[in-house]
């Protein structure tokens, strides 16, 4: 039996059924059990992780023909391969014979995967190429014994997403308002491309994945959770999330949201100010950007900087790094995090890595404290009274922007409210 927290006295009767999602999500409140219910977690796997578009990896992680890298969609391990025709595949890491793991190396280059158990060999496109002692398989159709695969694979500007659903909205439809965040990110490279080449830190938290997701665009917490590092590092980040900040929190639809810091950066009007540096200190990068975009456009890009955008359910573009959320259990989540690297900008890339390493991962100046909050939140939410989380901050001042997106002030809970309404919609789908 899985414990149901706060759902009333008759726990055992309710434990078996998927809770009625309509009763758990209200306009400004969410029931605590959405973070603790095992039944709900299993339903999320089916309706979100194994159905909708989920971020898997980046083309630069498999730069050459026959490269592969082990990735995941939620708890499911996925092999991302690039075949000799430059096609990207998302294969399931399970032998079609008796279920052994086919690949146990994090990455490599190979045209085939041979299962160590009985030697079945699969190509990096998923087809079964052969099995030892084939006379025992007379009459067997090899075509039907290819590796399982993620039904749909799509790329947007180097970012590879997968969906286990054969049909459904296209990736571009799913990204919707968040597509522009990827556009805004990649143009910070003079070549219009980012790369993921530094490997990932894998940071585990004993907390439900939605606590992490909501925190990514929670503009209310930085001044408190990160007070220690802001006070000793002379960081300007805290001011971006103060009650005087002109930055906005925006809900982008389909579960996506962002903290749009551009109003503050534009007020500052300092190229590379978003990155805590200046044009004078990055002359080669500035020259490359001017050459690529022209001085006016380059200046605009270097003032606006990169996005702070959470793409539902698992890709967080956090200015200088990306986080990929991976739920492993209802109360266990891994954040895979790495520095973004701007193609054609070596001068920026070391700083991007150094800043990222300082901030994130198990010992990070920022993320160790965020993770501490996720875990305390997971423990706190199990207390039985009150049963509800209150997400009403900024309800009184939320408004539509010129694109029709709901926005609030920098510290408002517009992103969470939007995400939960989207969550309810997809969880109610049959």
């Amino acid at each position, binding site marked *: 039996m899985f414990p149901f927290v706060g759902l009333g006295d008759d726990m055992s009767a309710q434990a078996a059924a998927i809770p009625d999602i309509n009763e758990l999500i209200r306009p400004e409140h969410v029931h605590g059990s959405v973070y603790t219910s095992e039944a709900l977690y299993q339903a999320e796997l089916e309706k979100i992780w194994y159905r909708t578009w989920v971020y898997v990896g980046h083309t630069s992680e498999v730069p050459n023909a026959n490269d592969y890298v082990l990735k995941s969609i939620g708890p499911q391990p996925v092999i991302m391969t690039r075949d000799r025709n430059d096609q990207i595949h998302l294969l399931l890491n399970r032998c079609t014979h008796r279920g052994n793991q086919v690949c146990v190396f994090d990455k490599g280059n190979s045209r085939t995967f041979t299962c160590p158990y009985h030697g079945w060999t699969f190509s990096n496109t998923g087809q079964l190429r052969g099995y030892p002692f084939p006379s025992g398989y007379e009459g067997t159709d090899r075509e039907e014994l290819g590796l399982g695969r993620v039904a749909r694979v799509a790329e947007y500007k180097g970012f590879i997403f997968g969906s286990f659903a054969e049909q459904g909205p296209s990736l571009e439809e799913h990204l919707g308002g968040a597509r522009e965040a990827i556009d805004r990110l990649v143009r910070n490279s003079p070549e219009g491309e980012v790369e993921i080449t530094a490997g990932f*830190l894998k940071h585990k938290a004993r907390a439900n994945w939605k606590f992490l997701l909501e925190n990514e665009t929670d503009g209310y917490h930085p001044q408190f959770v990160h007070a220690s590092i802001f006070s*000793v590092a002379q960081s300007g980040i805290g001011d971006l999330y103060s009650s005087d900040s002109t930055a906005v929190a925006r809900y982008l639809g389909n579960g996506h949201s962002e903290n749009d810091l551009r109003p503050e950066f534009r007020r500052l009007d300092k190229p590379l100010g978003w990155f805590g540096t200046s044009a004078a200190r990055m002359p080669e990068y500035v020259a490359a950007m001017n050459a690529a975009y022209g001085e006016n456009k380059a200046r605009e890009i270097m003032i606006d900087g990169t996005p702070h955008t959470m793409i539902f359910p698992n890709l967080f573009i956090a200015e200088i790094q990306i986080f990929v959320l991976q739920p492993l259990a209802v109360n266990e989540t891994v954040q895979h995090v790495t520095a973004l690297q701007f193609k054609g900008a070596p001068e920026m890339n070391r700083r991007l890595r150094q800043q990222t390493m300082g901030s994130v991962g198990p010992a990070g100046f920022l993320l160790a404290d965020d*993770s501490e909050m996720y875990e305390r939140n997971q423990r706190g939410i199990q207390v039985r009274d009150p049963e509800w989380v209150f997400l009403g901050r900024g309800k009184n001042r939320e408004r539509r922007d010129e694109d029709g997106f709901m926005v609030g002030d920098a510290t408002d809970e517009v992103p969470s409210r939007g995400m939960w309404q989207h969550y309810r919609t997809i969880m109610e789908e049959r």
Partner: protein
Amino acid sequence: MALNRDTDGLLSEVTQFIYREARFQDGHAYDDWEALWTDDGVYWIPANGDHSDPERDMSIVYDNRSRIALRIRQLHTGKRHAQAPRSRLRRVVSNVEVLDEGGDEIRAISNALVFESNLRGDIVWASRNEYLLRRVNGELRMARKTVHLVNNDKALYSMSFLI
């Protein structure tokens, strides 16, 4: 080749230094620990196995001397939530070997097992530690410390104490 007696003397000096470092870490004696570093110290905790390059790949920690100081200042604020309350720590350091010695510098290694107890629960960390020690005004100092966690290729919970 140094005489045996001298080698033993050096080994014991290095061992005492490493024990002292462990005591400062377990006791959250941040300033005492920071004082063990040279002015150009580098504190490195690699991720993803034994062959990563901190100038190319992500590391769990890759602090130069000023970032070590920043880490200590953050801990001193009392608002480093991951260390408030502080982890309770006790470590065992063993297998100390002096690998080589030349000029003012000594390369040494040790193994460490750290038991950490915090709000989440109890956890054991295991590592091989590599030291580059330097004699500064007659005293040993750390010019480089590398902590190779045995499980650095796996997903790890937060590790916000000094290891």
